[in-house]
Every structure is written in structure tokens, then in C-alpha cells.
């Protein structure tokens, strides 16, 4: 059984080499992971395991930062750091904000 993340040797098309600066929100996702690993809440191995459990569709269709924020939130729920209920409530509350973007 080969995981969908295990790509070595797969046939694939051309490499898109266009450079793209990371956006602020992409950097925030990186910052979250950096802080969580430094605080001892999460290890990168756990983050990878979560990425490998997103399902092939989400893994290959989401952007890099999207995958990572999904993996982070799944791990935080699994570890009991945040609950499903409080996360759902917060997402609904953000929807109601007049100016939700920070």
C-alpha cells in the first residue's frame, strides 16, 4: 500500500517554476506550526501523519497552506487542545463578523 503522499517515481507533468511570494495568511499558517512545535504541543511527525490522513482528494487539490491548516486543526482536536464544538462555534462567529479579515 503506497500512500497518496508518497510521490517518488510517479509520472507527472512539467514543473511550474513560476515564483510566488507567500501571502500573509500562508505565513500565519507557518507561524502557527512553528509556535505549536516550540511550545511542545505538536511535533512535525504528527503534522505529517495528519497530512497523510486528509484523504487523497484534499491532499492533492488543496494548496500547501490549506492542507497544513487542516492538519493542524485535526491534530489540535485529536489532542484535546481545542474541541470540535468550540471550533465550530468560532467559525460561525467569524461568519457573522462585519469585517472578519484581520
Amino acid at each position, binding site marked *: 500500500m503506497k500512500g497518496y503522499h508518497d510521490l*517518488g517515481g510517479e509520472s507527472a507533468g512539467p514543473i511550474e517554476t513560476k515564483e510566488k511570494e507567500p501571502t500573509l495568511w500562508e505565513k500565519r499558517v507557518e507561524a502557527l506550526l512553528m509556535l505549536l512545535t516550540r511550545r511542545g504541543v505538536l*511535533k512535525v511527525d504528527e503534522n505529517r*501523519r495528519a497530512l497523510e490522513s486528509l484523504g487523497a482528494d484534499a491532499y492533492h487539490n488543496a494548496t500547501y497552506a490549506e492542507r497544513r491548516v487542516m492538519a493542524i486543526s485535526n491534530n489540535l482536536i485529536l489532542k484535546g487542545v481545542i474541541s470540535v464544538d468550540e471550533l465550530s462555534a468560532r467559525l460561525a462567529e467569524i461568519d457573522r463578523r462585519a469585517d472578519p479579515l484581520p
Partner: protein
Amino acid sequence: MKRAFDPGDRVRVRKVDAPGHIRTPYYIRGKEGEIERFCGFFRNPEELAYGRYDCEQRALYRVRFLQRHVWPDYGGPRHDTVDIDIYEHWLERI
């Protein structure tokens, strides 16, 4: 801590399916290579991935493989290699 291999030893990567989070790429399983160096002892990522931070340490090696062995249809010269870091429990002596 003890380790099983030294630089120059010939090894084969175990060709098995394994559950969970694995850092041995699928394409290299069952392939034969040579220990290039011992990289140190590191906690087993297969356990760390599930939150077992106090798991035992494993010897990690850089293993060198000839591309023509890994990919029978490899298009480059015979001396090209791929080097991969592999934990001891994935290696068997040839």
C-alpha cells in the same frame, strides 16, 4: 546505544507494507544499496507521529543506491545515485 551497520555494508530495504506513518519511500522498498554513513540515533518517527514522544531511538543511516538498480529504465549513466536516510529497522543485511 548499539547499531547494526557500518559504512560500506550492503543492505536491502525491507519490502513490506506497514501500517501508520512511514518515512521509507515506497519506491525504495526491496532495493539494495550500501551504507554511506551512520547519521546518528533519532527517535522513531513512526511512534512520534502518534504522540509517543518518549519512544526509543533508532539508528539512522544514509544509504546509497544506484539509480539503474532503483529504476530499471533509468536514462542516465550508471554511476548516478539516489541517497536516502533510512532507519535501521527497515534494513536487512545482504
